[in-house]
């Protein structure tokens, strides 16, 4: 990430880290031939995500982010067992059971948008602790109008990973990094994928980060 941030600056770090880490997790899981992937997302995380998606008007994510399991139709379903567990409870548990854990905060996170949602949620929790569970419940109860156009799931043309666009986000970001275009894939995607196609024709001579084919993934 340090190298990536050197190229892109201190904004949109979460986009790069999140997308790459997520794909790395999925690919690693496929290599190990696991049945399921469980992540440690807790109630605070889910509530922050709901708020974040509302603030950004991301309807597609809003409809998916409160699901406790995702990808049930795919080869490796994912679940979030701690969805309703408050971060506070988890920390208390770790403290009383004397569990060893990492408590470092990402050095790039102070600039993240999520930080604002988190600050707000923490203030809410202080006044009315149930607010966190209530936000999750509201997120679960959202119903998207059937006339709203939603992205469809397909596969990435470049690597085969699941994607709602021609290229998956990781490939778009990778292309941007390799071509010295740190803003590629950032912001509203209005024909970004078509921009990428145009740029491909002019090759770059410098060392580029290879994207391996997702041969083993059958999404």
């Amino acid at each position, binding site marked *: 990430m340090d190298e990536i941030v050197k190229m892109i600056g201190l904004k949109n770090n979460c986009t790069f880290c999140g997308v790459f880490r997520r794909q790395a997790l999925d690919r690693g899981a496929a290599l190990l031939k696991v049945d399921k992937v469980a992540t440690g997302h807790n109630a605070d995380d889910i509530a922050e995500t709901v708020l974040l998606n509302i603030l950004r008007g991301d309807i597609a994510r809003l409809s998916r982010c409160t699901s406790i399991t995702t990808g049930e139709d795919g080869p490796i379903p994912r679940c979030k067992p701690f969805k309703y567990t408050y971060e506070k409870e988890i920390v208390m548990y770790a403290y009383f059971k004397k569990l060893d854990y*990492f408590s470092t905060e990402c050095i790039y996170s102070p600039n993240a948008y999520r930080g604002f949602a*988190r600050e707000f949620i923490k*203030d809410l929790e202080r006044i009315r602790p149930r607010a966190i569970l209530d936000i999750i419940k509201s997120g679960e109860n959202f119903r998207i109008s059937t006339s709203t156009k939603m992205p469809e799931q397909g596969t990435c043309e470049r690597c085969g990973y699941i994607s709602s666009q021609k290229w998956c986000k990781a490939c778009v970001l990778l292309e941007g990094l390799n071509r010295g275009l740190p803003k590629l894939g950032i912001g509203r995607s209005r024909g970004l994928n078509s921009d990428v196609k145009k740029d491909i024709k002019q090759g770059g001579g410098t060392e580029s980060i290879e994207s391996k084919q997702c041969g083993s993934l059958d999404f």
Partner: protein
Amino acid sequence: MQLTLEFGGGLELLCESVKVHNVNVDLPKGVDKLTMRNLLSWVRTNLIKERPEMFMKGESVRPGVLVLVNDCDWELCGQLETTLEEKVVVVFISTLHGG
């Protein structure tokens, strides 16, 4: 008053990476009992060496910081008004992690 203060969850970084502090806190003038309110302001002045906004917000701890008084959540003992006895152990744990 002799007290033991512990910092965890990353807060120790604000106190020069020292997790456990055995301290002697003087009662403020005209006060016969030491409250958490007094202690917090004492800690901010004497122990927090950097980024005080990570520890406190206004009069109380920053939201997201757990406070345990003798292993009991301070919200059950009166929060800022909790009175402290000799040799009590107060633990401050930050729950804010990750990105």
